[in-house]
């Protein structure tokens, strides 16, 4: 790729932000601004990004930011959209940015409401799989078997990671997609595609968190890539809740999940039976996904 092609005028993340070294969430938002251009308004719910964005008067983003309470992201996004429309600013893209807590748990009812009303904005969930900002407490996005501060050794997270994509698909929203930082081109394409569509759009970005996952800060991209190549976090999109499509297929056979888990302290001391159980879960989900992709009609 040429350097010139790689630069984006619209990049709106300033250096000097407060994210930890190797932060996947910071990178996710960097790619987001690269894709969406500068005419955006950002709604930020309580999450790591509330801190990353900087303490006033400092700001890490060159766009208007509105902070909102934890459960309200979906509603505040709706309000901002309507407000801008009332002022005739139809071309401003409203983006709601929430962590997994603000999406999967605390923010779910507002999110569901907004999706059901098909509000015209993009809801982006950067998923680091726990409440990292408040001290790494389990969320319903935490994968089975992981240790968090609310499930310390010998405990571990019980139950599956909530399948938020199916929930969103069930709302029959025009566009929903998964993405992750190791595949910036794929991520940016999805956001651009979403921007073209009217109605409620949902992007789920897996964003590795070095301190929360107990990984080396330099491994962020490596892990994000492994999440895809193991099939733990497949990259796909769903149109109108019915047309499922893979966008980035791991080449050849899927890598055993163990490789992904190995480098992360939150999965340390995970017994083999639990690793196998998680592998089975991943395999099952993968098959289900393939079935959906296979049976869905490509929509024009």
């Amino acid at each position: 790729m040429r350097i010139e092609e790689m630069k984006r005028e619209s990049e709106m993340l300033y250096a000097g932000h407060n994210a930890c070294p190797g932060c996947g969430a910071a990178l996710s938002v960097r790619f987001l601004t690269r894709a969406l251009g500068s005419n955006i308004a950002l709604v930020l719910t309580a999450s790591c990004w509330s801190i990353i964005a900087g303490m006033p008067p400092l700001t890490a983003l060159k766009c208007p930011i509105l902070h909102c309470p934890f459960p309200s992201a979906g509603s505040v996004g709706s309000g901002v959209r309507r407000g801008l429309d009332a002022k005739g600013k139809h071309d401003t893209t409203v983006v709601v940015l929430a962590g997994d807590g603000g999406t999967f748990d605390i923010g779910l009812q507002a999110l569901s409401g907004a999706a059901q009303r098909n509000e015209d904005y993009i809801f982006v969930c950067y998923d680091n799989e726990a409440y990292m900002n408040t001290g790494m407490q389990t969320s319903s996005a935490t994968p089975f078997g992981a240790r968090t501060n609310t499930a310390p050794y010998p405990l571990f997270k019980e139950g599956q990671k909530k399948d938020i994509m199916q929930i969103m698909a069930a709302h029959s929203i025009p566009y929903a997609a998964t993405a992750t930082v190791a595949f910036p081109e794929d991520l940016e394409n999805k956001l651009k595609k979403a921007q073209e569509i009217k109605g409620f759009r949902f992007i789920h970005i897996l964003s590795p968190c070095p301190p929360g996952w107990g990984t080396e800060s330099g491994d962020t991209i490596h892990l994000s890539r492994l999440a895809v190549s193991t099939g733990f976090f497949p990259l796909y999109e769903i149109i109108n809740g019915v047309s499922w499509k893979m966008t980035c297929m791991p080449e050849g056979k899927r890598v055993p999940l163990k490789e992904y888990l190995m480098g992360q302290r939150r999965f340390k001391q995970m017994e083999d039976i639990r690793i196998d159980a998680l592998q089975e879960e991943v395999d099952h989900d993968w098959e289900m996904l393939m079935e959906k992709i296979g049976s869905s009609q490509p929509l024009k």
Partner: protein
Amino acid sequence: MLPEVTKDELLYSHGNEPSTVNKTGEWRFLTPKRSEKLSPCRHGCLLNGEIPVWMEAVKQERWDEAWQTMSRYNPFPALTGYTCFHPCTEECNRGQLDQVIDIPALERTVGQWRLDNYRSEARPQKNKGRVAVVGSGPAGMSCAYYLNEDGYAVTVFEREKVAGGMFALGIPEYRLPRRVLKRELSLLEDRGIKFTTGCSIGSDIPLAELYADFDQVFLSTGAWKPRLSGIKGEESRGVWNALEFLSRINKGEQVEVTDPVIVIGGGNAAVDSARSALRLKGVNHVSLIYRRSRAEMPAGQVEVEAAEHEGVELICNALPREINTDGQSVSGIIFDHCKTNREGLVVDRSRSFHKSCGTVIMALGQEVDYSLFDTLEKPAVIFAGGDLISGPATVPEAINAGRIAAMAIKARIKGLPAPMLFKSEQIPVGFEELNLEAKLNLQLQNKQENPSDEASRCLGCGTCNSCGICYLFCPDMAVDPVDGRFELNMDYCKGCGICFKECPSRALVMEGGR
């Protein structure tokens, strides 16, 4: 890259001071640094060419830049592209993935671009100092090129009527199209280098005279003295020495050969002679006979295979004992079986055979003729290089010698100490060290590799080729694109190490501390 903003642009609900005042570089306890490593191709290259660096320019079709980079070490890429045996590709890491990079083909492309596009005005003579170059082979051409580039007046003296040394007289036309050589030489002339051909130093002009007339003299007369075998009949008519044979053909002169032809030897001159003989009118059968085994042939395997493919009969483990001759013509050769073991060559006279022929070409190698030096009256310093010093070697080694000589001569003229040269002791970057995952991943997303675009397959081992992965994946905007390169911005780098881990070429290291 930090976005530029004006104060009035900032109308935020949240804050209006960019966070760039926060120098997050202070958090760092590990620091990424650019540390380029030796690539295997450069390690193999006999003239130390910066292959991955010019490869990057080729990838982006920045031809002038490719030529500029390449010519730092190799001013004649078109010529080496045709003639060099490319040891660079032997070590190429890409070979472990699929196929090695066809480096010589890319050299030819860049060389041809230069021949087609280069301005051919004379170089300004900005430096005082006149230099004579004796011998116009690759070593002489290269020395003349580098001196001329730096604005010295150069005159090249050549014994033969044509310039180019082995390029013109040794290497057959089917391996090196003469239009390429002609264009290359005329470019040198246009740039102000004087060629005096048909002038043998030592006989036409005494060497001492050159030392008197010029500030410095570079000797690169090559190795042209045929090595003799001492067998009976060697001096007879109908027995050629390979270089004589090849240069007569290359000069376009008539050569008399009678079918069938036997070539004796196993080097490149032997193979070239055999293939050239087969191309002559009236020759139907050529045998190439070598005393050791096929695997021990010094000639390149590709060349040997090409000869066989064309119909040359290859006989190994046979040593000529005697050439049958009546003084006017030859009728055949008696060979003894022989093989090599630990003691050396073992000849088995009981297993001899006779092979009839009309012409014999002896290609037993060349030696250096030192007689030119005898005429010298103790000059203080002699600059010499190429085959003359190394003995019969290769084109790239001669070009390299010419370049180094030019540096030394320049230093001498300016009264500076001679440059010290060190051979890099670095171990080249191994295949396992490369982060191919990242590399292929990036390609997967952007564009598929174009197999016809050979340069794009190069992995850029150990060399930052401005792929931009570090820039793209930096969460802290601490990698700035500056003039087409990437620079690490230590004001903001938190030392996460993503760039170091993701760099596909291993062009970065992490060091302790800030």
